């Protein structure tokens, strides 16, 4: 919980800095706080937050999923194909994409639990494999939705009007549902208790009669399922996907958001609120860089630098606290 306060404080500092740097000295208005920018920021928080929670599901088991970006790519390419080329109804198409994503997670889980392969290896190969297959499948052509999914696109681009000129982006609501569901799962159910026990000490959990194998597989399934959901929303947002670039590096954003939000890479630790705040921090940083600089060349460097500084300060404070 202490970590959540820390990340919230850091987010506040970054937001204040963003406001200060983007404010117009004459009128006092800030681009950062403009309704348009806030809507945009919240929408991106919704989309990336889902991926961070996806990553957290396997990180709490002590594993890792590097294939999230490629699963995003799979969803982004397959959804337009189902909707436009096969002309399936939106509900059926979404269901198929989510089922496909879950199947990818099941495949990971079976390789990791059944064959005892390293999660890093399995999902690294997944990262290469799924993107490669998608590039072949789409012939490297852009997969466009056209106007095949007008209704469905509301999930990604819709706004619930709150006040004049500002509407709450629907992806934030999707994230809220996912976050609350995950939080209940983790903290209020036996399943969640078992998941965290497994993450802290798999052998002891198994010796306590916890079905650790099945639980690990399920964590990978949920991870890929959420990645598929995120990927669907991404493609619905921008209306088209290019297999060679769609979702590139998203696994790293997802992992960074989760870890920044206090999910321990060694497993068994994590709070959903922290993950959402961690993602918000990442997105606010990127947003600020885009607003302040006239190019985003420095984006990666700044994001990397801030996360590193945050980790160093966190460790420093912890040592200071332990010494007292």
């Amino acid at each position, binding site marked *: 919980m202490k970590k959540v306060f820390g990340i919230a404080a850091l987010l506040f500092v970054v937001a204040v800095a963003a406001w200060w740097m983007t404010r117009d000295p004459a009128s006092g208005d800030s681009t950062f706080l403009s309704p348009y920018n806030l809507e945009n920021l919240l929408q991106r928080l919704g989309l990336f937050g889902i991926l961070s929670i996806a990553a957290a599901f396997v990180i709490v088991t002590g594993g890792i999923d590097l294939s999230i970006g490629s699963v995003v790519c799979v969803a982004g390419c397959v959804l337009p194909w189902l909707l436009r080329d096969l002309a399936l109804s939106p509900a059926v198409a979404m269901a198929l994409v989510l089922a496909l994503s879950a199947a990818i997670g099941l495949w990971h889980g079976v390789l990791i639990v059944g064959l005892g392969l390293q999660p890093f290896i399995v999902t690294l190969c997944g990262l290469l494999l799924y993107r490669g297959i998608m590039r072949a499948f789409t012939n490297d052509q852009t997969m466009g939705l056209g106007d095949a999914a007008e209704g469905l696109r509301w999930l990604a681009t819709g706004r619930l009007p709150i006040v004049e000129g500002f509407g709450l982006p629907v992806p934030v609501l999707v994230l809220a549902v996912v976050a609350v569901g995950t939080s209940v799962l983790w903290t*209020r159910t036996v399943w969640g*208790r078992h998941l965290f026990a497994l993450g802290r*000490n798999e052998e002891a*959990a*198994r010796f*306590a009669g916890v079905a650790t194998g099945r639980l690990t597989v399920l964590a990978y399934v949920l991870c890929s399922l959420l990645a598929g959901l995120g990927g669907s929303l991404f493609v619905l947002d921008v209306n088209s996907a290019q297999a060679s670039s769609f979702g590139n590096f998203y696994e790293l954003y997802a992992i960074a958001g989760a870890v920044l939000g206090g999910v321990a890479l060694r497993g068994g630790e994590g709070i959903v609120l922290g993950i959402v705040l961690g993602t918000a921090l990442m997105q606010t940083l990127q947003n600020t860089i885009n607003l302040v600089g006239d190019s985003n060349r420095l984006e990666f460097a700044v994001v990397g630098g801030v996360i590193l500084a945050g980790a160093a300060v966190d460790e420093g404070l912890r040592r200071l606290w332990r010494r007292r």
Partner: protein
Amino acid sequence: MPAPLLEARGVDKAFPGVRALSCVDFVLHRGEVVALIGENGAGKSTLMKVLAGVHQPDAGEIRLDGTPIVLRSPAAALAAGIALIHQELSLCDNLTVAGALFLGAELRRGPFLRRRAMQEHAHQSLRRLGLEVDPRALVASLSPGQKQLLEIARALRANAQVLIMDEPTSSLTRVEAERLFAVTRELEAQGRGIVYVSHRLGEVLAVADRVVGLRDGHNSGEMPVGDATHENMVAMMVGRTLSNTRREAHAPGEVVLRVRGLRTQAFPRAAVDLDLRAGEIVGIAGLLGSGRSELLRALFGADRARAGRVEVNGVQVAGHDPAAAVAAGLVLLPEDRKAQGLVLGMSVMHNLSLPTLHRRGRFVDAAYERGLSERSIAELSIAASGGNQVASTLSGGNQQKVVLGKWLAAEPSVLLLDEPTRGVDVGARAEIYTRLHELAARGLAVLFVSSDLDEVLALADRAVVLHQGAVAGELAREQLSEESVMMLATSVEVP
């Protein structure tokens, strides 16, 4: 009279919430073995760690050969001549014997290792301790006893004058322990000083010159070993005399555990048959490596068995899944408490409820958890500040009680115990025995493995003796003696 080799005066050490040591004195002379005894949580480990530079004392003074010293780190202590021989063997398993011996003090020529020279030195210094192993062998391939000697060799390489041995024989066979005692006497004769920490009072009598007791972080007395008896040492540790824990003989009930033709992975040619009746306590005896733990693990489904049937109350258990065993009423208190018994990072309460929480529905039943935790802490007298205390901060005996408590909550028919009192102090050990007797009286079937023959003799209604994975024989209570067990355990022919 010369100044003592090592002298600690008025040592205080507090941790958040605990006063581990208050005003403790400790003296060690050259050519002396001092046994440090006390229950878990009495402060033995803390005192040892203060002497070995792991912890810095809050107050007090440490003198080495009469000179006050401050030990900032284990490395500084070793440089000063004080070595800690760890309880959990701390050598890196993936190194070679020579590599481990020289770790951190490698012989080299410029940036290059002098491997040949190190191997030669390693061979020499290990042979002086009576350890004949190839210096190029991996540490992982050594037995626990050989690792212990390797640790001692490491300490001697650093020319340690004070050797602190923490439960050195807890995982050694009898022969290895004898070897260790001989080495200890030799070191003593060389004028070094040895602090010997053990729960095994028989060993203390055999090896020590003087016995020093600690209780609740205070000195609780000392005596030359000539005056020491089992009874007065126990009294010094627990502050009272323990009643004898042997129980009344009684008639066992129905067969609850039936094992037929069980073959473990380690001993695929030995098929084990076993019947266990309600209310019976059966000990599995045998030498280290005779397949005792493997048998329990296979019964519980922690390891997949090659073949065989395990029935609990007439119902067959799947045999490759602890979850199925627990559901059938067969539970295991495992050998390695820290790796298998507890999720150390979780609270006492969450550990206690881990195997049974799912029986209360899909959602966490917080009231059940709290109730279970309060009940277990009270009934098993677990020394914890409450259910929310993190399990890793408990002492060994209390951790073991948590493991026991979580299984009692599962209301099993058969309780398997693997070395139930390893690293557990005398007081907690007696409590665990009493508890097991009560449980058996209520109809629980208990099957336990112990390397401690005294424990088998004290606890078991009958003993099954294993030899190379097979049942070498069975001994009824009247036939049980150290000699009869050893006869079977060392039987030459394989059935």
